[in-house]
């Protein structure tokens, strides 16, 4: 199936100065294309050019086989709706009034809405679950509610393409999720094409069909989320030097505390993660082990531990590995045991615990973690 909206040799920029050249991106109906990339890389510039708010410096934007430059205002407004970051002024307007502005391209000379138009407005409001505050003044509602209503506004414009610029910024996690959920439903039920920019990589990864990476004033890579979201690539795209990004979980970890480890953490099955993070927060360098590479704790330990004893996935540690761990325990002089359950697979960790216990090296995690009250005093 051909792209519904696409760019051909597009060059965008301000005041005749090219910012990004030769952009070739496109999205089909029923799909979401997401632009990711660092701040100031030019995502908004691309979006503004695609919606004809910025003059194109070269190339074309094509919607449904026709260049947008050749469309009349009215034609374009029936095909394309937007949700932008600009704060909208809506003095003395109720939420319903704001949504109703989406019907603009369909009303007559004086812009009076018909009964059918109002039905579509109410339908759009229901779609974003905003019935409860539809009559409230637009200026009094929260940011999350506003974004939803602007989405409803776009819906009732009955477009085939919706362009959204960072629709989830400033929203709390619940509203981020809800907004994207509504967007996804809309794309499926109305078979629309969506182009948007997102800052939240974890969400971009989950909601997008296609991802375009913009960095250093160029389109660096395009592809499916699976192709784009690789640890190393995301690190280079955003120039992450301190800390790390886990592509599978879409989670960020801070930088590991440098220096020789002061404590050995016996983790496993997720029990280690809170302790690793707490030690990192308190600036304590630590060693971790023994973890299989498919253990839940492993990605975080890899990011945060200064020394890590691991074995390949689904394998049991050999004697040499256990010896290495014991050597580390001696070096650290203290041990935190996080996991409480031991079985056949982590028998080696049980041995390590007994070894530490015999040496009187076991400490509670609390010893290392500054309590809030203590910090105050």
């Amino acid at each position, binding site marked *: 199936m051909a792209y519904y909206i696409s760019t051909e040799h597009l060059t965008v920029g301000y005041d005749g100065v090219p910012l990004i050249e030769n952009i070739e991106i496109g999205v089909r109906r029923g799909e979401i294309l997401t632009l990711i990339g660092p701040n100031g890389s030019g995502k908004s510039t691309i979006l503004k050019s695609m919606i*004809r708010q910025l003059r194109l410096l070269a190339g074309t934007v094509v919607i449904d086989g026709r260049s947008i430059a050749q469309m009349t205002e009215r034609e374009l*407004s029936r095909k394309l709706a937007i949700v932008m970051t600009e704060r*909208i002024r*809506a003095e003395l307007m109720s939420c319903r009034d704001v949504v109703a502005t989406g019907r*603009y391209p369909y009303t007559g000379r*004086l812009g009076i809405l018909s009964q059918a138009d109002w039905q579509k407005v109410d339908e759009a409001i229901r779609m974003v679950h905003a019935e409860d505050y539809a009559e409230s003044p637009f200026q009094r509602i929260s940011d999350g509610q506003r974004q939803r209503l602007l989405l409803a506004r776009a819906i009732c414009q009955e477009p085939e393409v919706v362009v959204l610029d960072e629709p989830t910024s400033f929203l709390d996690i619940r509203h981020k999720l809800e907004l994207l959920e509504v967007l996804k439903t809309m794309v499926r039920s109305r078979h629309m094409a969506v182009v948007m920019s997102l800052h939240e990589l974890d969400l971009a990864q989950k909601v997008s069909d296609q991802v375009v990476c913009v960095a250093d004033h160029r389109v660096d890579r395009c592809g499916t989320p699976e192709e784009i979201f690789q640890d190393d690539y995301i690190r280079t795209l955003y120039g992450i030097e301190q800390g790390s990004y886990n592509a599978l979980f879409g989670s960020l970890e801070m930088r590991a505390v440098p220096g020789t480890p002061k404590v050995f953490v016996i983790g496993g099955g997720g029990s280690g993660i809170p302790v690793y993070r707490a030690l990192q927060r308190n600036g304590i360098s630590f060693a971790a082990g023994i973890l299989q590479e498919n253990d839940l704790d492993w990605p975080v330990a890899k990011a945060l531990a200064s020394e890590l004893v691991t074995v390949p996935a689904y394998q049991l540690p050999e004697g040499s590995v256990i010896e290495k761990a014991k050597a580390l325990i001696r070096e650290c002089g203290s041990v935190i045991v996080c996991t409480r359950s031991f079985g056949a697979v982590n028998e080696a960790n049980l041995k390590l615990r007994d070894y530490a216990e015999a040496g009187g090296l076991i400490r509670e995690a609390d010893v290392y973690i500054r309590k809030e009250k203590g910090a105050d005093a």
Partner: protein
Amino acid sequence: MERHTHIRLWAGFISLAAALIILILWNINAGSVHLSVKEIIGILFSRTGENAAIVWNIRLPRIISALLLGGALALSGFLLQTFFSNPIAGPFILGISSGAKLVLSLTLIGFLSRGIAVGSFTLILAAFLGASMSMGFVLAISLKAKQMSLLIIGGVMIGYICSAITDFVVTFADDANIVNLHHWSLGSFSGMSWENVGVMTAVVIPALICTFLLSKPISAYQLGEVYARNMGVNIRVFRILLILLSSVLSACVTAFAGPISFVGVAVPHLIRSIFKTAKPLIMVPACFLGGAVFCLFCDLLARTVVSPAELSISSVTAVFGAPVVILVMLRRQKEHV
């Protein structure tokens, strides 16, 4: 909710219309010659009675002028507030009236000193030139300064410069012209002829209709330029129309009545708080009516308070209009905290 809004709208329009009729009658009645209601009705419908000349030749043209020009001022203010999305924009504050006044004075002195009579349309054209000139400066400032207050300060300064040059020019004019110019440059609805009324009707009413027909794009523009463009508004054409209409309206007012302060700022705000809406479909006719009521009321005071002498209309409109501006600014301050 729907019903509630409808009632408010009707109530608003009916009270405005009632106020307008009362003020018209009161204005006919008030003055050095007092008339009873019966007399007024007699004069209006049969043109008979000993005071018919006073009513028909002096009071009625003045009333109609105040009505039309007041409406024009309020409308011009509403358009400017929309254009700059600035709640305290208005033709007087932004120096547009003063620009019109400057070019008008130059034209008048130029023509009169050569002994040529000046027609109404020439006056309007001169005022329009001056208004556009000031508007050009204000637009240039608005491109550089995004802040609301900077735009206003810039406008006020332009106003001062234009007034200073006008004073300078008037100082060197013939004695005979000075009296007229001085009187006019303070702002007044006095001395209007039926010919004047005809010309201002020919300018103001078409401008009112055009503005009303622009209600739809204005409503889109109220959400901001980006959304308006996405809704299919041709922003360039729309902005030019907005500027032209507000310039024509304020130029027409200045040409006939001189610069009149604060009506353009205050009336749209009063109307918004009465009608509790900013919808242009309501705002355009309501502002026009409101401006008419406001100016008729102020002109009544200007004529009667220190009778037989007259106050300049601007000093009366300022007394009622300026507090509204202060209130608006304070309220916005509160909203933005």
